[in-house]
């Protein structure tokens, strides 16, 4: 589904990401962990073509993401608040996203009912613009918008950050349901090792832009990770 080939990214001659070839399969729940500056966000930005790779390329369904924008219709992502159109109400934002993805009319209604618990009564039906929501609620809007088009590829950068505990648990549940009931390829990064291990079946540990470890889900995955970060 997603392949990277000798991907590197340099800023002012400083190498911030250096990935050998990497392949993420369809339906895989792929976790990304690493300390600050490990290159997680850079990696995601390269996948969704927000920044230019210094060398190498990213392919989704065998098409280079920088050359062919077809991947956009099947990809849902939320990296940070540079996604949020904050002078819209959440509903207007979802309508805009639905319009961009050309979703049929009924989809939005169904989405609102599906996400009722996740929103916890704090998002819909308010007459507030997104800019007037709390950070946590803004984050909810962004994550939900990424999920709205029922994407084949879902990319979330530190989605648990800023969420309240209840919503964190609900998001884990939501992602796990998605994993079981659909064939969604998920890419999720997090600082919280518990969260990634609960959601992901494969975890890539980045260390200063290099792959430190590529772990396939096992019982002592969490322990392995904790050992690395404790060192």
């Amino acid at each position, binding site marked *: 589904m997603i392949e990277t080939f000798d991907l590197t990214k340099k800023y002012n001659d400083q190498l911030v990401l250096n990935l050998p070839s990497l392949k993420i399969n369809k339906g895989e729940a792929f976790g990304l962990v690493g300390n600050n500056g490990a290159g997680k966000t850079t990696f995601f930005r390269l996948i969704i*073509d*927000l920044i230019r790779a210094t060398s190498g390329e990213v392919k989704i369904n065998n098409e280079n993401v920088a050359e062919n924008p077809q991947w*956009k*219709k099947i990809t849902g992502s939320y990296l940070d608040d540079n*996604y*949020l*159109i904050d*002078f819209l109400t959440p509903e207007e934002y979802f309508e805009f996203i639905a319009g961009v993805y050309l979703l049929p009319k009924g989809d939005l209604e169904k989405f609102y009912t599906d996400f009722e618990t996740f929103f916890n009564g704090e998002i819909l039906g308010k007459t507030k613009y997104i800019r007037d929501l709390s950070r946590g609620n803004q984050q909810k809007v962004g994550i939900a918008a990424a999920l709205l088009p029922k994407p084949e590829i879902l990319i979330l950068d530190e989605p648990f950050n800023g969420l309240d505990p209840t919503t964190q648990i609900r998001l884990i549940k939501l992602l796990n349901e998605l994993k079981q009931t659909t064939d969604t390829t998920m890419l999720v990064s997090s600082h919280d090792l518990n969260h990634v291990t609960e959601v992901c079946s494969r975890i890539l540990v980045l260390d200063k832009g290099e792959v430190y470890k590529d772990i396939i889900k096992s019982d002592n995955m969490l322990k392995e990770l904790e050992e690395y970060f404790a060192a």
Partner: protein
Amino acid sequence: MWEQSMGIKIFLGFLFFIIFAEFMLGSFFLGKEFDEIFPDDPVEKFNSFLLYGFALGFMVRFFMQKVPVLSIQPYLHLPIKKSKLVNYVLGKSLLAPFNFFPIFIFTPFIFFQMVPEYSGFEIAAYVLSIILVVLSVNFLALLFKRNLSGNNAVTIVITVLVAAIAAAEYFEVISLTDVSSLMFTAALLNPVWIIVFATILGLAYMLNYRDLTIHLYPEDNLNLKKSGKRNVSDFKYLKSFGEIGNLMILELKLMTRNKRSKSTLVFMPIFLLYGLIFYPNPELYGQNGWLLFVGIFMTGGVTLIYGQYLLSWESSYFDGILSHIDNFNLYFKAKHNLLVASTIISFILTLPYAYFGMKILLINFIAALFNMGVSSVFVILMSTNNKKRLDLSEGAAFNYQGVSATQFLISFPVMLAPLLIYLPFWAFGYYDNGLYAIGVVGLLAIVFNKPLLKIAVNRFLERRYLIGEGFRKKY
């Protein structure tokens, strides 16, 4: 980046210097020649304008002066006495440039007109009175602004009130100039007035002090940082246009719901009045194509002023745009449609200028064609140079955030191109044909807008990483 921003700073600095120099020269000659313009009792005459001058100052401050309340937020949690913070905020407001303008206006006048006539004691009393009034205006404007700004009704009421007073003055119902003259001439002759002005200043300061002490918490300044959805259109009727309608709705909401874009668009009606300066006497300018510039300004105001910040307007959510939009032809076409629509609307609004002759109508029509065809596409092409983040919640006046060379480059070609087309015709005396030629060029550009827009889209696609990276930088 550095060289560019340096260049702009030099350019702006130069611009300010010129304006400042002109202002200085103007007030110098006004002060020097005042007794020649008003030979009988120049001082009384000068004083009669003062109330209006201060009223004007009040208005300008109300709209432009920054309320420095928000700047103390970072200190609120520190162990500093509240009264100290409040005094600091109020004291800081004295540094606003508006408080220094009067110095340049009054100094030459006092020097040339008053020094020969009055004693040092009288002049000192006068100067002190003026200072007290200026400071009172400063604090009153702050008080009003903090409590009333953002309230459109109040803005309208104030404007209407000022207009009404000016009208009453004009029709000689009441005479504020007489009051003004009496008041300030009295201040010159009787120092007791200083006490009156000092009391006003004291009251204004105290009211501010009280108001600020009570409302020191950030949430009390909600009318500076407004929240909540207000009664604004959501442009649902554009939905039927499908994908492109979706994008146009977004752009319209962007225009109407953010302070920066709104305060940019507020100037538009003023643009439409531009014609009043030139159109009443078209024969004065008729042969040199000057009126066409007027037409281009009037029908292309939104295109030029709003259009120059295209993309930058969206800098705060540009990653979302980049990752969601797969058809940038459509994305730019939506912008193009709106710019063209703005020209059509402006053209319709300028129809009454036909009163000054059908030639004016023709000129406006040709200008509209040119704007629809050429300016709109050109502005979009230039917008691909924008890569500075822009904060939508700040006002537009004196705001240079997001300004780069693009903004200065944009208007030159739009203004020069018609001139270049016109020039050869003009040289041979075919004035009208020159106008038609500009219209034809506009029309051709409208017909071929698709391939022309494609050039802009391709340039955007080449530069998208650069633009995205620039927009991500907060500063």
